[in-house]
């Protein structure tokens, strides 16, 4: 019998399938879903944007439309004293974070879409306040993005702290991509760094530069909705929504330009091109980018031994595909991606709790704890 050579056929099939899927590797896997399940910590929250833990039994949770909850042993109580929340499009009450020295000073930070002055519309603001039992006092505005706009998109925002007395938060490009992200003198498309009292650190990258906002730490961002500190290196890790097929993970560094909208792996929602450039000198490449877009929100490293094999792995919520994504990182590269809790709902947020478990903010549900089955 004559031997047939299948190699050319095989190669062309491989090419064809890789062209069709166009997924940025590594390909996402769906492992056995029966190993993990969730426990409801609190329910009845439409969009649980932010959360932070007071202790093992208590946490603060934000509801985007403008409610701050204190959750104690599964029971939620509204905290009074918020400034007026300007809810429009993707903006509203966003992140909440406890001051690193909360136990002593009872201070919390919030990022909120507000309109309290000037032109119509709103922009992202950072506030701090003192948390008394179920009310806020000493409310103080620390930063407000300018100008106001009626655009609905890209407000950010997450809050994190380093161990040197700094706070970082983001504001998205506010639907004005051609003007804001690359202009250091305009708010939007930036990660900001402040001291914990709201003052601007003297060694901020653009503190000495004329025509630049002194609070800016990095720029060229589109819409940062996940930020966390790497438990070993102390680096600031961030994820942001790209256009269609351009969601990114970045390691945020002082004074760096992350390229939006000059370089991107994505295209417009309509399918038309934004730029033909994926890289440029002086602009940072993402650590990882998602094609197709997963609509990432929230970000946390697992740093406990609760889930044995997951220590050191990165977790990101997918709004679009309704799962929690596990990313295994080796030698500075994403080597494995997995769907955890497939079809759980739109995952808005993920954080590691003081007990080492991962907690998820899921839209239409509330806060869920990821546990072994």
């Amino acid at each position: 019998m004559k031997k047939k050579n299948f190699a050319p056929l095989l190669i062309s099939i491989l090419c064809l399938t890789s062209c069709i899927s166009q997924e940025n590797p590594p390909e996402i896997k769906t492992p056995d879903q029966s190993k993990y399940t969730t426990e409801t910590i609190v329910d009845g929250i439409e969009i649980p944007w932010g959360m932070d833990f007071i202790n093992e039994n208590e946490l603060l949770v934000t509801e985007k439309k403008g409610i701050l909850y204190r959750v104690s042993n599964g029971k939620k109580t509204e905290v009074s004293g918020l400034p007026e929340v300007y809810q429009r499009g993707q903006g509203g009450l966003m992140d909440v974070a406890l001051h690193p020295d909360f136990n002593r000073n009872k201070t919390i930070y919030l990022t909120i879409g507000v309109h309290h002055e000037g032109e119509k519309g709103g922009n992202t603001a950072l506030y701090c306040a003192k948390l008394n039992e179920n009310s806020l006092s000493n409310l103080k505005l620390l930063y407000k993005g300018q100008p106001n706009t009626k655009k609905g998109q890209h407000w950010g925002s997450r809050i994190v702290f380093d161990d040197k007395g700094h706070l970082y938060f983001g504001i998205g490009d506010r639907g004005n991509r051609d003007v804001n992200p690359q202009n250091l003198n305009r708010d939007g498309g930036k990660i900001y760094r402040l001291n914990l009292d709201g003052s601007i650190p003297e060694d901020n990258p653009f503190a000495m530069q004329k025509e630049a906002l002194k609070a800016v730490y990095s720029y060229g961002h589109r819409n940062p909705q996940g930020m966390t500190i790497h438990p070993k290196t102390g680096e600031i890790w961030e994820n942001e929504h790209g256009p269609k097929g351009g969601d990114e993970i970045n390691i945020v560094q002082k004074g760096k330009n992350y390229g939006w909208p000059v370089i991107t792996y994505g295209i417009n929602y309509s399918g038309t091109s934004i730029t033909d450039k994926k890289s440029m000198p002086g602009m940072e490449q993402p650590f990882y980018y998602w094609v197709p877009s997963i609509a990432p929100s929230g970000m946390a490293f697992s740093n406990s031994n609760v889930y044995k094999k997951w220590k050191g792995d990165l977790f990101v919520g997918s709004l679009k595909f309704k799962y929690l994504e596990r990313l295994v990182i080796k030698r500075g590269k994403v080597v494995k991606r997995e769907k955890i809790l497939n079809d759980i709902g739109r995952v808005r947020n993920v954080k590691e709790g003081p007990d080492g478990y991962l907690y998820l903010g899921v839209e239409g549900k509330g806060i869920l704890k990821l546990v072994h089955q």
Partner: protein
Amino acid sequence: MKLFVGIIGLFIIYEGTWLYQKKPLEQSIADGKEIYNDFCVQCHLDNGEGVSGVFPPLAKSDYLLNNIEMSIRALKYGLSGTIVVNGEEYDGVMQNQGLDNLEIADVMNFILNNWGNESKEIITENQVANINE
């Protein structure tokens, strides 16, 4: 002569208020398209088809075309819980987007007259104002 000027004046005021209150449909659709691209396109997509099982379609959507009042209410106050659109179940949350009544009328006129959708009804600002939670 005075009377004539007066009549013309009144006419202009009348026409002016009429035009102010009732935007022509084409203008409303054009304004609605801008709102759509700003607030809706991320989920319902450019073709209005949404994402099966996650974001319901607006294009040829039975839910939309048979429940215009409910749809306006959803834009004004938000929508959650299970709905069935073109035979498929959706159990998501759409919060109100903070649009004013005129913006809601405009975006309704856009989605009701796009992607093969057709509506005899023109949604007005007044009509949106009269819909309660």
